[in-house]
C-alpha cells in the first residue's frame, strides 16, 4: 500500500511523457516547425508530474504519523490519560501501535484494543486518501502539460528551468545539513545549560553523569564538569600524534625523495589500506592485541597498567592516522618547486641535506595543515576510543591510566536512552557541540593554511 502512490506517480509520468511526444509529433507531421524537440515536450510533462507529486507524497508520508498520532490520542476515552506524564503517554501510544501491528503482550484493556482498531482504520483512510490525491493531482498535471504542447511552446527552456531548480535544491541540501547539525546541537545544548550552568560544564573537574537522577534531586549537582573528559581526549589525541607524526613524516620523506619508483608504487597503496580499514576493526584490534601486549609489557618491567589505557587507544589511533599524515606530507613535499631542489643540489648539498634543510622547511606550512586535519580526526574519532578507552573521567595526563574521551561519553550517554529531557542525554549534545566547534575551527584553519601555501608556489 505504501508503494501504490509511487507506482501511480511513475505511471502518470510515463503516460504524460508519451502523450506529449505524440502530440508534438502530430503537430510536426502537419508541417509546422516546432520550437523545441519532441523529447523536450515529453520531458516537460514528465518533470512537471514527478517533481510536485513526489514532493507531495514524501511530505504526506512524513507528516502522516504525527497527524494520526494526534487524532488517536484525542480519540481516547476521557480520563485514561489524566495525571500521566509525557513519557507514560508515549508508552501508551507505543503499546497501541504494537497491538495494531499484531504484537499483543499480556491482556490489554478494551479501550486500547479499540484504539488499535481505530489506528488501523486511520492508517487505511490516510493511505486511500493519498492514492486519491495522487491520482487527481497527477491527472491534472498531465492534462495541464498536454495543453501546453504547441509549435511555439518553449519546452526546452521549461525543462532546463526545472532541472536547474532541482540541481540548486541538491546543492542546498548541504546547507540544510549544516543548519540541521547546528540547530540540533544548539537546541539541545541550550536545554542542557538551563539545567546545568555553563561555567560548571566548562570549568568543573568532576564528571559523573551516570548518577541516577531522582525527581527531587537538583540536576545532579557537581557531576557535569567536562574538564576531565576534554583532558582525556587531549591525552589520547597526543598519544596518537606522537605515533603518527614521526612515522608519517619519515615515510613521506623517504617515499618522496629516496624511494625507487617501483617501491613507491607498491608501498603507497599499502599504506592507504591502513586508512581504509573501518575504525570498529581498529577498536577490536586494540582490545584484542594492543591492550594485552601493553599490559604484559608493563607487568614485565614492574608497572601496573590498566587494561584500557590511553596508550592502547591512542597508539592504535596513531596507526590509523599514519597514511593520513604521510599522504598530506607527500603532497606538500611534491608541491615544493623543482628549482629549489636543483638549487640546493647545485650548491653541493647531499640529497639528505637538500631534503632536511631546503625542501622540508619549505613544505612545513602544508605539513602543518595536514597535521591539524589529523588532530581534528583524532579528537572526533569515536569507535577506537569507545572500544579501547575507559568510561570513568579522571584528571590525569598519565597515558598509562585509563581515561575517557568526549566521543566515548557521547556514545555511552546516548546508547539505550531516548528521553530528551534529562541532563544525562542533553550533556551528550553539549559535548557534541564542543566537538563540532573544535573540529570546525581546526578544519577551517588547516584548510586555509593548506590553500594559502599552495598559492605561493603555483
Amino acid at each position, binding site marked *: 500500500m505504501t508503494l501504490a502512490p509511487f507506482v501511480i506517480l511513475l505511471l502518470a509520468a510515463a503516460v504524460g511523457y508519451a502523450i506529449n511526444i505524440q502530440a508534438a509529433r502530430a503537430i510536426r507531421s502537419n508541417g509546422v516547425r516546432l520550437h523545441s524537440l519532441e523529447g523536450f515536450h515529453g520531458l516537460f510533462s514528465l518533470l512537471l508530474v514527478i517533481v510536485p507529486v513526489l514532493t507531495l507524497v514524501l511530505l504526506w508520508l512524513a507528516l502522516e504519523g504525527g497527524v494520526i498520532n494526534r487524532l488517536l490520542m484525542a480519540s481516547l476515552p476521557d480520563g485514561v490519560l489524566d495525571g500521566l506524564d509525557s513519557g507514560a503517554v508515549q508508552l501508551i501510544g507505543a503499546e497501541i501501535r504494537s497491538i495494531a501491528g499484531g504484537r499483543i503482550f499480556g491482556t490489554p484493556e478494551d479501550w486500547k484494543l479499540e484504539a488499535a482498531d481505530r489506528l488501523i482504520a486511520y492508517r487505511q483512510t490516510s493511505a486511500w486518501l493519498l492514492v486519491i490525491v495522487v491520482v487527481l493531482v497527477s491527472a491534472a498535471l498531465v492534462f495541464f502539460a498536454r495543453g501546453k504542447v504547441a509549435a511555439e511552446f518553449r519546452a526546452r527552456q521549461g525543462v*532546463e528551468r526545472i532541472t536547474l531548480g532541482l540541481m540548486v535544491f541538491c546543492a542546498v541540501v548541504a546547507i540544510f545539513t549544516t543548519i540541521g547539525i547546528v540547530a540540533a546541537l544548539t537546541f539541545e545544548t541550550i536545554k542542557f545549560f538551563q539545567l546545568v550552568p555553563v561555567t560548571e560544564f566548562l570549568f568543573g573537574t568532576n564528571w559523573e553523569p551516570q548518577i541516577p537522577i531522582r525527581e527531587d534531586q537538583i540536576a545532579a549537582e557537581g557531576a557535569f564538569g567536562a574538564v576531565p573528559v576534554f583532558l582525556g581526549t587531549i591525552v589520547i589525541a597526543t598519544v596518537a600524534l606522537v605515533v603518527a607524526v614521526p612515522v608519517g613524516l619519515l615515510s613521506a620523506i*623517504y617515499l618522496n625523495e629516496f624511494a625507487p619508483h617501483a617501491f613507491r608504487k607498491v608501498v603507497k597503496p*599499502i599504506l592507504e589500506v591502513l586508512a581504509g580499514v573501518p575504525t570498529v576493526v581498529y577498536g577490536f584490534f586494540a582490545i584484542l592485541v594492543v591492550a594485552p601486549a601493553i599490559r604484559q609489557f608493563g607487568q614485565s618491567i614492574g608497572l601496573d597498567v590498566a587494561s584500557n589505557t590511553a596508550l592502547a587507544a591512542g597508539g592504535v589511533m596513531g596507526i590509523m592516522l599514519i597514511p593520513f599524515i604521510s599522504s598530506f606530507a607527500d603532497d606538500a613535499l611534491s608541491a615544493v618547486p623543482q628549482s629549489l631542489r636543483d638549487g640546493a643540489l647545485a650548491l653541493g648539498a647531499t640529497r639528505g641535506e637538500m631534503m632536511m634543510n631546503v625542501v622540508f622547511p619549505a613544505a612545513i606550512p602544508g605539513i602543518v595543515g595536514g597535521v591539524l586535519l589529523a588532530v581534528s580526526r583524532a579528537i572526533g574519532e569515536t569507535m577506537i576510543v569507545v572500544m579501547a578507552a575507559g568510561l570513568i573521567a579522571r584528571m590525569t595526563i598519565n597515558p598509562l591510566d585509563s581515561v575517557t574521551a568526549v566521543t566515548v561519553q557521547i556514545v555511552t550517554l546516548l546508547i539505550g536512552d531516548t528521553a530528551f529531557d534529562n541532563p544525562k542525554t542533553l550533556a551528550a549534545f553539549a559535548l557534541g557541540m564542543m566537538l563540532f566547534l573544535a573540529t570546525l575551527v581546526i578544519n577551517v584553519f588547516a584548510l586555509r593554511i593548506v590553500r594559502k601555501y599552495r598559492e605561493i608556489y603555483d
Partner: protein
Amino acid sequence: MTDITPSDARPTSRGTATEAVRRSLARRNRKQLVLQGFGIAAIILAISMLLILLTSIISTGYHAFTQTHIQLEVYVDPEEIPAEGLPRGGFDDVLAAAMGAHFPAVDLTDRAATRELTSILSNGAQFILRDKVVADPSLIGQTVTLKVPVSDAYDQLNKGLVQRDTAEQFRRVDDAAIARFDRLDELGLISTPLNTALITNADSRFPELAGLKGALIGSFWALLTCFLISFPLGIGAAIYLEEFAPKNRFSDFIEININNLAAVPSVVFGLLALAVFIGWFGLPRSAPFVGGLTLALMTMPTIIIATRAALKSVPPSIREAALGVGASKHQVVFQHVLPLAMPGILTGTIIGLAQALGETAPLLLIGMNAFITSAPGSPFDSATALPTQIFIWADSPERGFVSRTSAAILVLLTFLIMMNALAIFLRNRFERKW
C-alpha cells in the same frame, strides 16, 4: 650550507677547502643514510602494523568459519511430544534421552547429571528439533538423525582453544566433561563442518548460534537507502556547482559548507540523526532506513567532490564542440560531459559507499546496536548493521564471540575489498586519459 666551508678552512686556499669537504663528506653521507634508514623503518613499522592487524584477525577469526556439530539418533517420543501439543513439547527431554543412549551410566532421572550431560548440546538444539517436527509432524514416533551444534565451551575444546593440560579449576570444561566429549568423538559422532549458520542465522545470545544474517540485510538496506539518496543529490549538487553556479557569495558559501561537512566527525552526524530524524520527525529507532539517511548525509560530500573532479577532467574541447554545433548548455552537460565523467563519478561513489559500509558511530547513536534475533523484513524494521554487529559481539563476554567478531570483521573486510576492487576496475577499464 656552513657545512661545506668549515670555519677553520681558509676560503683562499683551494686545496684545504676541497680537503675539508672530502673529510666531511663521509659524515654527511652517513647522515643521509641515517635519514633513509629512519624512513624505511617508519614504512616497515606501518606495514608490519597492518600485517599484525590482519594476521591477528585472521588467526582468531578462522575458527568461527567451522562449527563443531554432534550427530544424534533422536527418538521423537510421542509421549513427550504429542502431535496436538505442537509447537510445545518436551524436546529437551527427548534430546537428553538421545544423549543418554551413549552414556548408560548416567541416570536420566537425576536432573543435575542430565543437565551436565546435555550441556554438550547447544541451547538451540531443541529449537532445531522443534522446527523439524513442526514442519513434518509425521516424524513423531520415528527416530530422526539430527546434526546439531555443540555449545560454545565444547566447540572451543574441539578446536583446541581450551588447553587440556591447564589445571581443572582454571578450565571451562572439567575432566568428566572432556571424557564424555572424547567418548562421543571416538564414536565418530563429532564433526566440524563449515559454519553456514554464520551467514544464515541472525544474532543470538549463544555464540554457536549467532550469525550475521540480520546484520547483512540491515547493512544492505542502509546502504541502498544511502545510495538512492546521496547519488542523485550528490551528482545534482556537483553539476550545479561545477557547471552552472555563478561565481558569487552564495556559491562560495555552499562550497565551504560541503568542504566542512566532509570533515565533521561522524558521531556528530549521529547526533543530528538522533535529534532531527528520530526526535523531531519521529522516524523509528534502529531502522536501517534512518541509518541510510544518516550515512547519505555523510557520503554526499565525498560524492560531490569526486563528481566535480570527474567533471573537471573532461576537456573543454568536448564542451566547445557540442556548443559549436548548437547544443544548449544543458544539452552539453547532460548529453556529453556527464556520460564521459560517469566512470570517475561511479568510482568515487563506490569508494564513498565503502566508507559508509564501515561507518559505526552514527549507527550506534540511532540505536542500530540493539539485540535483535530476527532479520529485518523491511528498511523500517529494527536491525543491526555489519559494523555495529561487530561492536556488539566485541562487547560480549562469551569466549566464543571473540572468534565470531573476527570472522564478522573478515566478512566486512571482504565486502570492502570487493567494493574497492570494483572501483579500481572501473577506473582502469573506463577512465579515459585525454
